[in-house]
């Protein structure tokens, strides 16, 4: 990693050059909600003027640049009696500007799941390798809990990361590509007081978190509380809409669909992001549903996010951005659900006389 300091105006020139020459996406305000709060999304940008540098958080994550909502996995063409299969892993280079630390953490987690596992995914790798990521730090929203998940700071997974130290950005440069581009602009090596300002900035960010979720021993609590009434309680609110998984930066479950082309001369195999909250997620042939109730399905989302799965060494994959909590119309959010579970657990611990074979 190489550290540099760049004046904000110079940084603007740098981004202008980059955004002009490449297909780029960055935060843009799309709406103002009924409470007067600005709503942002990652959308196409072509100059630094398009980028809302002071944005809070985007409603949807940047996940779909790597895991599109719908993606063709392979294509079949039929000849007289037979068929051929074609697969391409092609991806066009893009620039993603303005990602937050937790957003980049989410990408690192996806890397872990999709590249380091037993079967690495070339589709994902192609997109990941062709994306130039510029991260920018920010002050948390009142409901962000990425600090609880230790994802409020980041040291890998980006090309360059900018920390706002007043007039300048403190740049962490993590790729030769970024370094070469930046050579053309005016930067300097950090002085002592730049370092101080960086430390101060980090402290401010760290101290600004208002939401905390106690995740100690959460995986085992989730195992123990598998049959907890908490699931039914929250499950009863759930609309089975899958919104939470769609906006989440790490939810990656999917469905595969295959269909003939209209001219019947070929077929396409497509992957479609799915959500474990949708009713047929665990339904098999013959109609048996392994998770028939809202609560069962909701529980699995928490299970996956906070307990982790064997394939990714049982690590939690939630980064604490609370996008799902903000987007859920039913008001279901990780903080409340997890606290509820803990309370359940604690009440059963203090009430020792209750059924000993509960665990």
């Amino acid at each position, binding site marked *: 990693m190489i550290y540099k300091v760049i004046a904000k105006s110079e940084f603007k020139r740098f981004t202008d050059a980059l955004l002009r020459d490449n297909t780029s996406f960055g935060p843009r305000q799309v709406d103002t909600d009924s409470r007067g709060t600005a709503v942002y999304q990652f959308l196409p940008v072509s100059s630094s003027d398009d980028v809302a540098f002071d944005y809070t958080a985007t409603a949807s994550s940047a996940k779909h640049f790597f895991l599109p*909502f719908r993606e063709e996995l392979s294509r079949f063409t039929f000849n007289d009696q037979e068929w051929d299969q074609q697969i391409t892993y092609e991806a066009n280079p893009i620039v993603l500007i303005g990602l937050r630390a937790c957003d980049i953490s989410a990408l690192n987690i996806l890397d872990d799941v999709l590249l380091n596992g037993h079967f690495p995914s070339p589709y994902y790798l192609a997109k990941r390798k062709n994306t130039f990521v510029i991260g920018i730090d920010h002050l948390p929203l009142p409901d962000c809990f990425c600090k609880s998940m230790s994802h409020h700071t980041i040291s890998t997974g980006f090309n360059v990361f900018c920390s706002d130290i007043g007039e300048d950005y403190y740049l962490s440069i993590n790729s030769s590509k970024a370094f070469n581009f930046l050579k053309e602009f005016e930067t300097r090596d950090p002085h002592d007081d730049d370092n101080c300002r960086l430390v101060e900035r980090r402290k401010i960010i760290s101290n600004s978190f208002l939401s905390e979720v106690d995740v100690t021993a959460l995986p085992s609590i989730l195992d123990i509380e598998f049959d907890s009434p908490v699931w039914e309680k929250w499950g009863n609110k759930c609309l089975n809409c899958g*919104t939470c998984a769609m906006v989440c930066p790490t939810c990656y479950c999917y469905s595969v669909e295959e269909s003939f082309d209209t001219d*019947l001369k070929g077929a396409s195999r497509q992957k479609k992001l799915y959500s474990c909250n949708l*009713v*047929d997620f665990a339904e098999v042939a013959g109609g048996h549903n392994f998770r028939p109730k809202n609560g069962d399905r909701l529980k699995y989302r928490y299970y996956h996010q906070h307990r982790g799965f064997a394939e990714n060494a049982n690590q939690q994959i939630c980064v604490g951005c609370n996008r799902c909590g903000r987007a859920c*119309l039913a*008001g279901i959010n990780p903080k409340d659900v997890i606290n509820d579970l803990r309370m359940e657990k604690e009440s059963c611990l203090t009430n020792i006389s209750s059924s000993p074979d509960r665990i």
Partner: protein
Amino acid sequence: MISMKYQGFTFEKLKIASFDFTCCEGCQLQLANRESSLLDFLELLDIRNFRELSTEKNNDYDIALIEGSLSREDEVERLQAIRRQAKTLIAFGTCACFGGVNSLKNKFPLQESVAEVYPGMQIDTMPVRKISDVVKVDLSIPGCPVNKEEVERIMVHLATGSLITLPNYPVCFECKAQLNTCMFELGEICLGPITRGGCNAVCTSGKTPCLGCRGPSEEINMPAFIELVTERKLSPDDLQEKMAFYNAFEEFCDHEA
């Protein structure tokens, strides 16, 4: 007429007929849309009877697309005759599946309506009914209008003997994939959370609330939905007006009233 051979499967063209009843004919019109694949789409079909498109008529068809709802006795008879011929009868569009906007007239006394619009005339009309009130429906393709992409897929599936399903998740799921700001965040009631997806959230993408033309999604959580409207202090009248718009939430409306 064999249109395609593949691995020993032979796909025959679909002998199809299209009939319109009480409606705006917008769903039939969709059949001629999606121009980029229209010629391939027409290749799939052996159109036997389609008054809007063709003068030629032939009553030997397997698949009948039924557009519109029923609002006159002679329509009921015509439909029953079609049912006798068709191997697969498809309720095509929201009017056919649920009654559609036409059902709004059922709120008003029939004779008063006639007197208002056709003063002094005898007009043959009856309360609006959906297709399945009268005959057995084999397949429903909802939408006001139907989504041509979905129609195309279903026709391909019919031709290739593939399984035909509609999405069983709500509109919200697709709405999020369009990166829309939720209508509820903008202070509007939206029926997306209880409505079957498959339209690509076209209404909310144009920033108007979903009115539920595709009917209830699978296992909808109505109590939670009502609670969410109440909690946000949104107008229950507005909710009722929206749920009644296409008559697609009939069972839930009564239940609420």
